[in-house]
């Protein structure tokens, strides 16, 4: 072994404690969850001792459970789409502007990250209520003549989650767009590209890493988020995370709760891998 290799190994040793803590903190709960999901339900609060796939079979064959999974994905998809559409123009502006207000705008963008989820959602409830500001404004503008149900439903969860995760999308896209040489856009325009062609043929393809990164972050956080669906969904919205909590805390079916958690995690991992592959192929 060369001296440098030896040195690298010794430095590597320094990382060991951190790796150990990470393994304990993240690995153990996942391992115990996975283990729980592989045994039978033996009455409230008890996991049986028969190794079985029955929990997975139950999940996969019951339309009700599958429906929850579909709803969770629908939520993720809707939130990612809205974040992309709302976030892209802002990110483009932030990436390209020389305005002295850039710093202020950047702060406003990341401000939602500075507030805890509970406070943020408590703030939304009065705003979105039947007599809240948003409904008042919509009526004042003549966009509706009756209050719209904006909270305690799917829409409320979408609004709250989008607000919380938009900063991630914007930050991700800003970083990537900043790295696109502005002269590349000028070259496109010089060669006859209209603003739209420049966007679709040049800027958008070159933004792909940011879009994929933003999608990954926003989608995975959305499908695993608990606080916002619980607070803004009322009791009418059930997503995987709230369903898992319900199974474990109220139904006391640890085995099935664990099963749902593992399914959610597996799907999230699969999506991450797919997206990473995609972005590697792109670059």
């Amino acid at each position, binding site marked *: 072994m060369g001296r440098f290799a030896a040195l690298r190994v010794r430095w590597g040793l320094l990382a060991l404690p951190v790796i150990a803590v990470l393994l304990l903190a993240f690995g153990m709960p996942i391992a115990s969850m996975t283990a729980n999901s592989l045994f039978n339900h033996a009455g409230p609060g008890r996991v049986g001792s028969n190794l079985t796939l029955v929990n997975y079979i139950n999940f996969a064959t019951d339309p009700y459970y599958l429906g929850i999974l579909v709803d969770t994905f629908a939520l993720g998809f809707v939130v990612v789409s809205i974040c992309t559409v709302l976030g892209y123009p802002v990110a483009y502006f932030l990436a390209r502007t020389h305005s002295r207000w850039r710093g202020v705008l950047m702060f406003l963008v990341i401000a939602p990250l500075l507030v805890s989820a509970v406070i943020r959602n408590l703030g939304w409830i009065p705003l979105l209520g039947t007599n809240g500001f948003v409904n008042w404004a919509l009526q004042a503008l003549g966009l509706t003549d009756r209050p719209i149900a904006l909270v305690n439903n799917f829409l409320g969860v979408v609004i709250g989650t989008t607000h919380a995760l938009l900063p991630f999308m914007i930050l991700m896209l800003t970083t990537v767009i900043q790295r696109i*040489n502005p*002269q*590349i856009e*000028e*070259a*496109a*325009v*010089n*060669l*006859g*590209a*209209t*603003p739209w*062609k*420049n966007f679709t*043929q*040049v800027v958008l*393809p*070159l933004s792909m890493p940011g879009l994929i990164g933003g999608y990954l972050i926003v989608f995975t956080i959305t499908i695993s988020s608990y606080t916002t669906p619980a607070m803004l969904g009322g009791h009418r919205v059930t997503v995987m995370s709230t369903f898992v909590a319900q199974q474990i805390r109220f139904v006391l079916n640890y085995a099935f709760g664990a099963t749902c958690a593992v399914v959610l995690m597996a799907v999230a991992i699969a999506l991450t891998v797919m997206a990473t592959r995609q972005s590697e192929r*792109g670059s």
Partner: protein
Amino acid sequence: MSEVRLDGVSRLYDRVVAVDNVSLTVAEGEFLTLLGPSGCGKTTTLRMVAGFITPSGGAIYIKGADVTRVPANRRDTGMVFQSYALFPHLTVQDNVGFGLKMRGIRGSEATARITEALRLVKLEQLAERYPRQLSGGQQQRVALARAVVIRPQVLLMDEPLGSLDLKLRQELQVQIRNVQRELGITTIYVTHDQGEALSLSDRVAVMRDGRISQLDPPDKLYSRPASAFVANFVGRTNLLPVEIVGDGDAGYHVKSSASPDLTFAVGTREGDARRPGERCLLGFRPESTTLAPADGNRLTARVDDIRYFGAVRSVALTTALGNVMEIDLPAGAAAPARGDQVTIGWRPADCFLVPVDD
């Protein structure tokens, strides 16, 4: 008809005047270079022709049509950037084909034109590569092919060789000139490298503080600079303060301002007539100076330093008038030693007069 005409074009940034009332005409097929020190407004001028910057005043015409308010994507110019600015997600041939695609040219015609453009820059073999798989020089050749394949009215280049090393720069200069000649394409080229400007251009516009100082063919610019600024910026120059004594058919007679009994003959009469008594600067180039001349203008000097450059020896001198000067001697000729007193000389035809100002 002129291909490109700038008529009193200006551009202001806040209170900075980046380009100040520039007028020039580029003839069809001409290679015109904007040359000048950093910040003199070359890029701003070029980008106004491309349509990326709107002039604060004046008008720009391409083929007789006023394009001052025409957006960049409808101006029909081909631009080559210093940063190459190739599309990283497209192959070489798709980069070159981009402008054709924007013009709705597809299929066999597009393929033929892409192949032809790549042949011009000698990159046929690399059509399938991506820009990141190419060297800097190759990337810039792709950029050149991409700009000319659309057969633009005017080719615009902003220091295209600025980030390449000397050897490659010289190779590409030749290639740019060949492509430009072969296509007969009207070209505006920006550089702050005077050698590049002189060797490539049909005419050179020397810019200073947003204005054109002088616009002339390279040989005239070099041998008959119109100002001390141009004389110093284009090549090296020795300048002596002088006063006009007489005005004859063969040129002027001048005397040194510092030592009135020293007189020189200037064998040229460019520009406005100069009156006796007028003060100006007498200029001559290091390489048109000889040691111990038989006739012509003479000046005694002490040798301060000698530097060897292969083809020439550059000799730094302090003249009897107290000026510091530089002369080039053929490397094969006998060289003086440091501290020697020498007489230097130059022919009346090899010197010029410029105003004292600036």
